């Protein structure tokens, strides 16, 4: 069991006033609340912060912590057992709720050794069973409905199909694998509901549902906006000027597209119904945005031809721009 430096966790000095402690706690609680902060570490941080505050906000607990906490640390560092007299230290911690900031249950075993567990006067060292329950801290509410993130590639989301997910039962520790059927054309932000796969209901309540929140992994070729897909089509200057045909890859295979003569960069070619599938209103469109690219180095021939073009052409690419500025 590790010593926990509650002062360091809250980022306050050992001589901090109760006001300073409360201020630090509130600030950190807002920052790391798992419903606000999506970082995977946020939940653990938030739990730690809550535990630290639970001790330091109460002058009596704080005093005990100051006294026995440092002895504990010293004992741990020297590899010994907890300080003598430890078995007499318990604190009737029963989750006082006069403070709005007190939604915590399930503290670290360090905390439980030091202060005992809620409702049970048994933090004593000589009763090893008492304080050692592997506490699963619950910041969840009684409802058993739960949510998780399901990351899909654009292709997976478009085609739908089966995807395996593993769920571990927190009580038995058993892992079960489920093959989830992903509806075709699911979009980021949408949810898949798996009935009865959530947590256990309270009392005789029914088992909750598990919701999978769909997220799309970044895709190098396509960008999704609503039901429409955007991609780029690289063309040579002469293809853009003279018009050409090119192969474009779409979500379902390659297609030939016509590049109209006189296409500048940014022009969009629309391929109707080649976008993202949608069960309700049909597939969206695919927009291929033309991007004119030039060779990095020119052959002698190419250079000669470009130079000739430069001399003969009367085209003024900046004419419109200059006019609008004037």
């Amino acid at each position, binding site marked *: 069991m590790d010593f926990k430096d509650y002062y360091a966790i809250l980022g306050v000095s050992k001589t901090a006033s109760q006001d300073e402690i409360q201020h630090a706690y509130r600030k950190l609680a807002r920052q790391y609340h798992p419903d606000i902060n999506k970082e995977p570490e946020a939940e653990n941080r938030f739990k730690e912060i809550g535990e630290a505050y639970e001790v330091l906000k109460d002058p009596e607990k704080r005093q005990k912590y100051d006294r026995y906490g440092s002895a504990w640390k010293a004992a741990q560092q020297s590899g010994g057992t907890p300080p003598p007299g430890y078995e007499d230290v318990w604190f009737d911690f029963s989750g006082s709720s006069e403070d709005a900031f007190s939604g915590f249950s399930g503290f670290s075993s360090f905390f439980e050794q030091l202060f005992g567990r809620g409702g049970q006067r048994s933090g004593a060292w000589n009763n090893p069973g008492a304080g050692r329950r592997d506490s699963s801290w619950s910041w969840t509410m009684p409802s*058993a409905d739960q949510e998780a993130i399901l990351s899909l590639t654009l292709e997976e989301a478009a085609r739908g199909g089966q995807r395996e997910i593993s769920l571990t039962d927190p009580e038995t520790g058993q892992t079960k*694998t489920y*093959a989830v059927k992903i509806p075709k054309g699911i979009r980021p932000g*949408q*949810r898949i509901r798996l009935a009865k796969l959530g947590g256990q209901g309270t009392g005789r309540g029914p088992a909750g549902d598990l919701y999978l929140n769909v997220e799309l992994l970044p895709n190098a070729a396509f960008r999704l906006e609503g039901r429409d897909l955007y991609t780029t089509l690289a063309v040579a200057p002469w293809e853009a000027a003279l018009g050409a045909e090119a192969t474009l890859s779409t979500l379902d295979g390659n297609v030939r597209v016509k590049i109209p003569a006189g296409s500048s960069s940014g022009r969009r070619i629309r391929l109707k119904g080649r976008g993202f599938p949608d069960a309700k209103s049909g597939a969206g469109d695919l927009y291929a945005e033309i991007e004119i690219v030039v060779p990095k180095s020119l052959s002698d021939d190419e250079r000669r031809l470009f130079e000739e073009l430069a001399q003969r052409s009367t085209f003024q690419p900046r004419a419109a721009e200059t006019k609008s500025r004037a």
Partner: protein
Amino acid sequence: MRTTVMNGLMVQWGQRLETLSTDEVAARCGLHPTLVERLVALGLIESLDGRTDRFPPDVTLRLQRALRLRRDLGLSYNGAALVLELLDRIEDLERRLEQYEHQSNRWKYKTP
């Protein structure tokens, strides 16, 4: 390992999907139905067409989030509703920013 095949139902698409009544929402979240009604009046959650007593099933997730925010951060229901609305907006902006960055990265790094 045993694999069970589950049919995922998409929540937002008006396919045949069971809905929850006020009482069912209350039971799932461990609240009194009157409180659920109050939270609807407050605009924290919305019923399916804004009038009837039917809720999309994932309304419980939003409700739980609000309850946790209230409990852990000392917010009022109204404050929790505001936080949820702002979080929705941030999520939307982040998604748009991602698209935008995707677009501008393409111009930056593409080497023909």
